[in-house]
């Protein structure tokens, strides 16, 4: 329990120090608002539209895959912790290993499926491909 009090204290510091820095900065920095300064940076051009746009579905596919494997790692940790003590207490090697191999195997098959379906392949936008061919033609 007291370990978590100590961690909480460090969390307090980790919030407090950045906020202290922000306060210090607020006291010493100038504020010179000018027209045009607050425009979004787009390499010096006048910004076009907002950034709240549709983006590549790739990120969604990868995130879904991540979710599966992240839950898997959570389930692997307890097994790794008891692995050695279970063996020394007389559990047979196959009884300790095989269930986890089946578990990892199922997920690896899932990864192979996702791989062959192209879920982890970077999809290029058709627009970019068209432009590339146009450049080659020119």
């Amino acid at each position, binding site marked *: 329990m007291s370990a978590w009090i100590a961690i909480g204290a*460090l969390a307090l510091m980790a919030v407090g120090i950045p906020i202290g820095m922000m306060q210090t900065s607020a006291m010493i920095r100038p504020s010179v608002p000018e027209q045009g300064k607050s425009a979004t940076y787009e390499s010096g051009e006048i910004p076009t539209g907002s950034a709240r746009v549709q983006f590549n579905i790739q990120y969604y596919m990868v995130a879904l895959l991540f979710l599966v494997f992240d839950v898997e790692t959570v389930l692997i*940790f307890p097994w790794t912790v008891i692995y*050695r003590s279970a063996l020394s207490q007389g559990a047979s090697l196959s009884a300790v290993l095989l269930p986890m191999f089946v578990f990892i195997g199922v997920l690896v098959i899932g*990864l192979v499926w996702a791989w062959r379906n192209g879920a982890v392949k970077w999809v290029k936008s058709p627009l970019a491909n068209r432009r590339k061919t146009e450049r080659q033609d020119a």
Partner: protein
Amino acid sequence: MIPLQSETPLPDTIANLLGLSGLLGTIVGALLGAFLIANIVLLQTAVAGPWAKRKITAAFTDRISVNRVGPFGLLTIVVDAVRLLSKELVIPDGVDRPAYDLGPLFIPFSAILGFAVIPMGNGIHLADPETGLVFAFAAASMASLGIMMMGYGSDNKYSLLGGLRAIAANIAYEIPLVVTGASVVLFTGTLRMSEIVAVQAEPLLTVAGVTIPQWFAFVNPFAFVLFVIANLAEVGRNPFDIPEAPTEIVAGYQTEYSSVYFVLIYLGEFVHIFLGGAIAATLFLGGPAGPILPGFVWFLIKIWGFYFFTQWARSAIPRLRVDQFLDIGWKGMLVLSFANLVLTAIIVGVIA
């Protein structure tokens, strides 16, 4: 069997020194200990960020770099701190206010929090909960949330791209990192950091009178290499720095940040590098263990060693393309890390 020790070594020492006990002692000790840890971490970052990084890069590119203020230009650290904090804060139009402001707080917060469970030697170890290793991973990966907030909150296309790339990078390399960490747990049978370090103190073999300890980098060098590569990607350094990629997307998720916000992001990234080094040192390099010098000095040498490694990679290796980056993560590292876990399990099982 390893003797059971206190769950909070550093706060206990401080409470004993002050002659406090009970709940008051716990809280005062925890606060002072946390303050000390945070300052140790920030001191490393202050040296690494404005000074060491420049000097190392200068050495690689045959320049001199900062040398005007103080010995070896060391006082540049103070100058830069004042300079950066006194910059004007420009907040662009159309930002999503709470997210835009909270993002930069999240990055240093998550990285500093991870140091709570790291044993730094000489009793400098803030907390030692049973789930130490998982806590360190969890705290470190919280930074993704801050990056997400910054990328989406800035209302800038570069920021959005950088934020999404950072998330894709973190989630692609998180699994190999954690699974390789789990392969060490197979040897130790515990997640408690102090016990992971204690197991590594046992001798592996003796060569010509020199006893080599059972550091997991010696026991399983393959896992160590995997871990270091995944770590490099996790902290977003070259060759895996596609989230920032200055030649492609300006500065990624930090494009719209100026003044103190920029300082906080930068600081958080450096603390993150050191946290990555600290986790690698604890898991694979015997934590603070080492001959002759005191433990804390060895700990600093190890985390600075990892820092030098990241800077060396930064100067020496070209950046990967984003599709290559994801390919290496999902098709290379993930498969290798599971192969490592399975092989380690078999070998440990056959030997034990």
